[in-house]
């Protein structure tokens, strides 16, 4: 089944909140070779004006995993994970993610473009904090092939 063009504009509920933990930030920083002390040392982060360790810029993708799962769980999406290639990724920040943040992501599918049997699917997740303030918007472009689950 090809990707369903009616996903564009569909209303997805906000994800359940994600509480950013200090050890998770340290674990992720180590995994992406982000060795700057702001990511691991609370004192270094506080010296920059943050309450706790600062997550590396691409940590936002971890918070948006729940929105990818929402997309895959739509029974009529036509999207099967093993046929998905990550083509482009963008982040637009209002501020960095910091340990202690309680974040929610809201998914929207903003574009689907057919490319032969495949489709380029553009999705955005807007991540906000517990006060409802914008933190970061992630934009992913996925190249989705057609195939059986």
């Amino acid at each position, binding site marked *: 089944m090809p990707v369903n063009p009616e996903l564009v504009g569909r209303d997805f509920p906000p994800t359940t909140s994600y509480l950013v933990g200090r050890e998770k930030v340290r674990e992720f920083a180590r995994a*992406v070779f982000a060795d700057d002390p702001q990511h691991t040392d609370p004192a270094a982060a506080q010296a*920059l004006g943050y309450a706790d360790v600062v997550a590396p810029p691409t940590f936002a993708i971890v918070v948006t995993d729940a929105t990818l799962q929402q997309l895959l769980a739509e029974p009529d999406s036509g999207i099967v994970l093993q046929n998905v290639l990550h083509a482009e990724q963008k982040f637009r920040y209002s501020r960095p993610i910091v340990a202690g943040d309680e974040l929610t992501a809201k998914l929207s599918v903003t574009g689907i473009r057919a490319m032969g049997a495949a489709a380029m699917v553009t999705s955005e997740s807007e991540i906000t904090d517990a006060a409802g303030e914008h933190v970061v918007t992630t934009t992913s472009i996925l190249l989705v092939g057609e195939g059986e689950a």
Partner: protein
Amino acid sequence: MSADSTGSAFTALTVGDVVAERTVHLTRESLVRYAGASGDFNPIHYRDDVAAAVGLPGVLSHGMLTMGLAVGTIEPWLGDSGRILDYGVRFTKPVVVDPETGADVTVVAKVGAVDEESARIDLTVSFDGTTVLVKAQVRVRTT
């Protein structure tokens, strides 16, 4: 976040300046570590049989690992990752991580454009002589 003394380091940027560079050695352990830290357990990033079955030349680095280590290159120069306004890449070529010899990913960060409030840092990210990310650009606040 707040005004600080590092701000002055950004006023004299010239297009073409190299602000940071490094080479990161990836091994299969790096991929397993990233899988665990990120929650991305797609087996093409740790199983040779699955990678071969879907027609890949070998086990690949996660694109988001490559994207993450690329921007980490400029952070010691930048001082505060809160200066990053946006960051985007296109994934064009895979980074194949050999089970014995791993893979070396090289990142060179150059000033691509400057205006009154920000600078665009262009990241050239290569593996085995090939550019693996295209339009890898970080816009940073310089004021």
